[in-house]
């Protein structure tokens, strides 16, 4: 068996919830792909904002309002350098990845696409990168195409020749699959899509939190991700786009802060990024996300990715020993992000999750917001264990024991 990865107990201590006991046992949290835990300093950043500087942002002249505005905009600067955007004006705060993709669909796509134009997705998309396009299809009659997924859980690249033609105006795919764990070959996909003149959006909900992502190096056009999946609070997400594209887009939501001049008859829009931030934004949440980015950056995204890959390799090897465990996705750790989705012959995923919960192990069971992908593999549901910087090898040992117990109890 691979030797267990280095113990990172220093990081664990940063997360107060990891002191929590479930049924009198220490919590083993293996559900970070759904939402991660938060280090103390993220909670402190929000509490101290509310207890010291709280006020609405923008246009206020009093001290608190200036402090709040400065802190909110500083968080935007942190996001800007975290993904290496070329300008802070390209970074739009939303609620979550889902809202970011709806913004892309309703603003950019609705303005630029016509009936018959094609948006190219894949069979492995999260509902967040599928349903907004289905809504747009109903609204303006675009066509959706899907890159198929191979039995090993990779995108079927050979299919691109047939799928990619001049009618494709946008390719929108997951950078990392939240079910298969596959890290998709996005450089290749971006180059191919640009080759036919299409724009490219990456659903980076599972990549930005776990590995270095550089939007300029990737040469991508749009990118979406969520704060709550990267040590940040709920209620904050990011939509990033190239400035020239954002500038040409109509607004998404209307209201205060996103306008310049308003009369009863006419409106002009504020400059970027404010044009896309209508109403009072998620101020404390942006500040919390800024603190999360500081935290992740200090550790280093390459270090985090390395830690997760070591854990994944260890887990893959351990799971291979379990008879009847069917893994979804590629079998080598270096093509994968830190999550394992599987079924266990004769044991329903709910019963796996319930058995593990009795041992204080939190995993997810269900379709993980990817029903079409589950249909592709002919299963109604699956179980998923997902890792983050605070996980350690002993937790995977406990997972394996729990899975064996579930088999003993339920399989027949």
């Amino acid at each position, binding site marked *: 068996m691979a030797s267990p990865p280095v113990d990172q107990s220093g990081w664990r201590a940063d997360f107060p919830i990891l002191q929590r006991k479930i049924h009198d046992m220490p919590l083993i949290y293996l559900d970070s792909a759904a939402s991660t835990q938060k280090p103390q300093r993220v909670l402190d950043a929000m509490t101290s904002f509310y207890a010291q500087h709280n006020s609405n942002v923008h246009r206020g002249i009093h001290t608190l309002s200036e402090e709040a505005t400065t802190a909110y905009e500083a968080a935007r600067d942190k996001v800007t350098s975290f993904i290496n955007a070329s300008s802070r004006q390209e970074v739009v705060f939303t609620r979550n990845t889902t809202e970011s993709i709806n913004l892309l669909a309703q603003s950019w796509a609705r303005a630029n696409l016509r009936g018959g134009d094609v948006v190219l997705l894949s069979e492995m998309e999260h509902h967040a990168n599928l349903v907004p396009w289905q809504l747009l299809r109903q609204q303006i009659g675009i066509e959706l195409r899907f890159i198929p997924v191979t039995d090993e859980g990779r995108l079927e690249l050979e299919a691109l020749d047939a799928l990619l033609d001049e009618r494709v105006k946008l390719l929108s795919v997951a950078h990392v699959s939240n079910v298969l764990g596959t890290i998709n070959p996005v450089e290749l996909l971006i180059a191919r899509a640009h080759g036919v003149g299409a724009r490219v959006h990456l659903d980076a909900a599972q990549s930005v939190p776990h590995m270095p992502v550089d939007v300029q190096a990737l040469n991508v056009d749009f990118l979406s991700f969520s704060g709550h999946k990267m040590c940040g609070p709920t209620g904050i997400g990011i939509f990033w786009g190239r400035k020239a594209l954002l500038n040409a887009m109509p607004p998404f939501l209307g209201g205060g802060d996103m306008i310049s001049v308003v009369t009863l008859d006419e409106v002009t829009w504020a400059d970027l990024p404010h044009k896309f931030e209508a109403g009072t934004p998620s101020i404390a949440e942006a500040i919390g996300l800024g603190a999360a980015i500081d935290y992740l950056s200090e550790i280093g995204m390459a270090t985090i990715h390395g830690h997760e890959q070591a854990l994944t390799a260890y887990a893959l090897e351990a799971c291979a020993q379990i008879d009847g465990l069917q893994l979804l996705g590629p079998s080598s750790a270096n093509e994968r992000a830190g999550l394992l989705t599987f079924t266990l012959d004769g044991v*329903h995923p*709910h*019963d796996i999750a319930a058995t593990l919960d009795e041992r204080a192990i939190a995993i997810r*069971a269900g*379709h993980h917001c990817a029903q079409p992908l589950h249909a592709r593999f002919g*299963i109604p*549901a699956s179980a998923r264990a997902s890792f983050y910087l605070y996980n350690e090898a002993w937790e995977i040992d406990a997972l394996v024991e729990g899975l064996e117990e579930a088999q003993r109890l*339920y399989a027949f």
Partner: protein
Amino acid sequence: MDPLARETIIDYYRNPRNKGHLDAPTVSHEEKNPTCGDVVTIELMIEDGVIQDVRFDGHGCSISQAAASMLTERVMGQSLADVQALDKEAVMEMLGIELGPARLKCALLGLKALKVGAYGLESWDWQRGS
């Protein structure tokens, strides 16, 4: 989970009572939980407002299948009025466990199929089981 309750549930899951089909059911109704793929079908033979015979079929997690099986035993020979009185509490009592929001939907799938099949439903509240 209480070990005894779990043992009973697993027993019903592995050796389901009243699983199968009736020759000529008065009513047959299927309910699905798209979240996890659980499926339960309830078949009823109703005469004079009384359930003369009942079967279930389906697949899914232990809770959904055991609860459906226990339910068939419970309603056998009962009147439709008795069925109407069954709710979330009754199902949790049969199972012998408390249930959180997610598993509640598994546990109540059979009851929903039974009620929709037996007398139709205008609306359904998972929090109440009626």
